[in-house]
């Protein structure tokens, strides 16, 4: 006990005391330093914004541009990381709002300020998140010479780096899908969202291999193929799309049904009605959404028969919604015989005031 009290008194408590006091001092000094630097930092931020706006919109010739950039460099602490990041963020923000030559000017400034070297150093950094940041810089600023560096990460074992590198590569190469066969079997919604965004923002032409993708055994490639076909309104492979209604992957099936709806594949009506009874509630609801768009007399007959006997309220409500779109008069007849159906009709019609 005496020994423990001795340790407490002379080692443990003093150590804790030093740690606590140090933390408090660091906390306050950090804030004081931040507040002290804030005015000059704001000044530099304003100066940078002014410079970037002027230079991108004024179309100066090469020599004047060089001179202005050199002058600007001497006025800001460009060697500081925060300053580089601030400039890159500003450039990305401006580039996303500009088009044509003015957008290209930003890329020139990016190179002239040697910020491309900074982004490359981030990609080469051992930390994964730094790599992602560097890749993001290249992609957002459309820095095509960065392709060679990004290419090394297309098959990286880390899925986030691999995903970012592939998307950036796709954007910068304007449609080279060379890494697609390496896409994992399971991807998040986010990866597909990112691919679609790149297709949209970079105006990438339809991939020539799209007809092969739809034959793939990898559900992710199939998903990508379907979404790409919807994006380009490509209906040449409608039979293959419809055939995927029998695929075992539930998420893929939902994408297929959405594609049928978006591509107005009326020829899918029979197949949708056929698979309907064997599907889960979630997929049945998706099917009804699609039938509301592509349905014909067959769907009307199917719904008139099904609404009466349907016991699951969510599905019945969706059927009412569907029939209301296709044949509201027949729906009124059904409603007259069944108060529950009538309530659903009222709900469907009055919810969208």
């Amino acid at each position, binding site marked *: *006990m005496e020994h423990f*009290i001795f340790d*407490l*008194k002379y080692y*443990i*408590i003093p150590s*804790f*005391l030093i*740690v*606590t006091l140090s*933390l*408090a001092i*660091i*906390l*306050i000094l*950090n*804030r*004081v330093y*931040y*507040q002290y630097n804030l005015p000059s930092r704001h000044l530099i931020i304003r100066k940078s914004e002014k410079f970037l706006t002027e230079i991108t919109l004024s179309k100066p010739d090469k020599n004047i541009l060089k001179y202005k950039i050199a002058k600007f460099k001497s006025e800001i602490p460009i060697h500081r990381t925060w300053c580089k990041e601030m400039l890159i963020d500003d450039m990305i923000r401006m580039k*996303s709002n500009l088009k044509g030559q003015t957008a290209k000017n930003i890329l020139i400034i990016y190179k002239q300020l040697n910020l491309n070297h900074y982004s490359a150093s981030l990609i080469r950094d051992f*930390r994964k*998140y*730094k790599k*992602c*940041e560097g890749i*993001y810089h290249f992609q957002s600023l459309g820095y095509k010479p960065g392709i060679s560096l990004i290419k090394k990460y297309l098959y990286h074992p880390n899925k*986030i780096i691999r*995903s*970012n590198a592939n998307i950036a590569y796709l954007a910068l190469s304007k449609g080279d899908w060379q890494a697609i066969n390496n896409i994992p079997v*399971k*991807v*998040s*919604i*986010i990866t*597909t*969202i*990112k691919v*679609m*965004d790149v297709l*949209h923002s970079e105006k990438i032409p339809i991939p020539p291999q799209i007809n092969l993708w739809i034959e793939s055994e990898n559900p992710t490639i199939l998903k990508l193929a379907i979404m790409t076909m919807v994006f380009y309104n490509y209906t040449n492979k409608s039979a293959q799309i419809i055939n995927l209604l029998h695929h075992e992957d539930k998420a893929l099936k939902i994408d297929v049904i959405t594609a049928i709806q978006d591509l107005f594949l009326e020829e899918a009506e029979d197949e949708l009605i056929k698979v309907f009874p064997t599907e889960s509630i979630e997929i049945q609801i998706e099917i009804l959404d699609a039938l509301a768009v592509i349905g014909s007399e067959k769907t009307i007959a199917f719904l008139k028969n099904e609404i009466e006997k349907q016991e699951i*309220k*969510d599905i019945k*409500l969706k059927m009412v919604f569907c029939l209301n779109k296709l044949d509201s008069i027949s729906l009124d007849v059904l409603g007259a015989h069944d108060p529950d159906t009538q*309530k*659903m009709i*009222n*709900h*469907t019609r*009055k*919810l969208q*005031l």
Partner: protein
Amino acid sequence: MTHDFLYYLIRVYDIFVACFSIGYISFYIFLSILSYWAIIKHLKYQKYLEEEVLIRSNHILGVSIVAPAFNEGVNIVYNVKSLLSLTYPKFEIIIVNDGSSDNTLEKLITEFDLVKIDFYYQEKIVTQPVRGHYKSTNPVYSRLLIVDKINGKSKADASNAGINSSQYPLFLCTDVDCILKSNTILKLAKPFMENETRVIATGAGIRISNSCDIKEGFLYKVHYPKEWYPRFQELEYVRSFLFGRMAWSQINGLLLVSGGLGMFDKDIVIKAGGYWHQSLGEDMELITRMRKYMHDAKEDFLIKYIPESLCWTEVPSTREIFLRQRIRWARGLVQTLYLHRKMFLNPKYGRTGFLILPFFFSFEFLVPIVEFTGIITLIASFVFGIINFQFLFLISFLVYLFYLSITIISILIDEVLYKSYASYKELITLIGMAIIEPFVYHPITIYASLKGYWHFFRKKEQKWGVMVRKGFESPAKK
């Protein structure tokens, strides 16, 4: 003989407390490392997906905001306008008028051009009867849906009616008077889309709005609270949200997503039975039940926490209201632990049964009891003359320093990442509050916890009570 017996009893208690404290301190050191790691990971992987890309997408998940309102007539119009201003491509706002006896519904009808509609209400979770649904005839307010129901004497019942009326797969549960940051929905919905494993709930930091400049439901400037109770609670919130919950999120061990701000997978919530209207800690109880459901269904799941302050809420500023709230929380904790006692150390429930619930039992539920029995033991030791004053002083000082360092680390993380406070003076005040907290504030929270436990074990009738709010004050009035 009695003296000897008591002496040995106290010694046994000493050993228990020593082991307990070592466990407690070790676990908190572990949590602090996890928390730091989780925050860094969150911040650095922001570039995984830009939020603008998500907003532009057609594949984004729809979100229903569910906000129960009971006698909120004074501010309801501002509250709804504030919610309507949120940025997200696909969302609806469901205000549940929980049988207000004031003019809440009338104000809503007048301000937003509401008319009663034929809404096909499906009671997937049983609630008090719903009197009707209202929609606006003005297209500007097309996102708004009002549910008018009979008062169910709990926020849980009102929230359940909102969930039953919602149309999207995700819902965000909040209090109608909470002020949300404009990108709150996006921030909370993002984890549902970026993870391959199913995310069933997300939460984020809540801060105190008591002294902030708020005008017509919009937050103009954040200020450190001026009153004592909110100041201590600010300290508690920073510590709990940034420190504890981030750490638990990192190991997928979150048992609490705050009732003030949480997003949920509607399908799982309904399958788990929704909020339990008799619970006094319905937010924690729901998460526990959702975890149980997912374990029973043998499905992998995640509950994620975002280390950003997305919501500002008014907290109790008087002792009476504060005590009432904390008594209810304590009672909610013990109620949830008791209700789900079969999950404890049950292999079927994995880390929920072997780590999370035992932690909550040992280091949340037991702490007030250990502290209280500690005081009794001290008195007994003093009476029997077996107290070692030097050791008592040293060990108490060590525990105090440990607590203080944990609190300052939390403030430091917050400061380095977010700079939430206006000046270093506010930080010094916060450190000052941290120094006095164990002597001034902590005993009150212990008292409230013990009283909550007592009420639970005595099966005292449970009441929610009314949180008296000051409402929004315009900056001009200050």
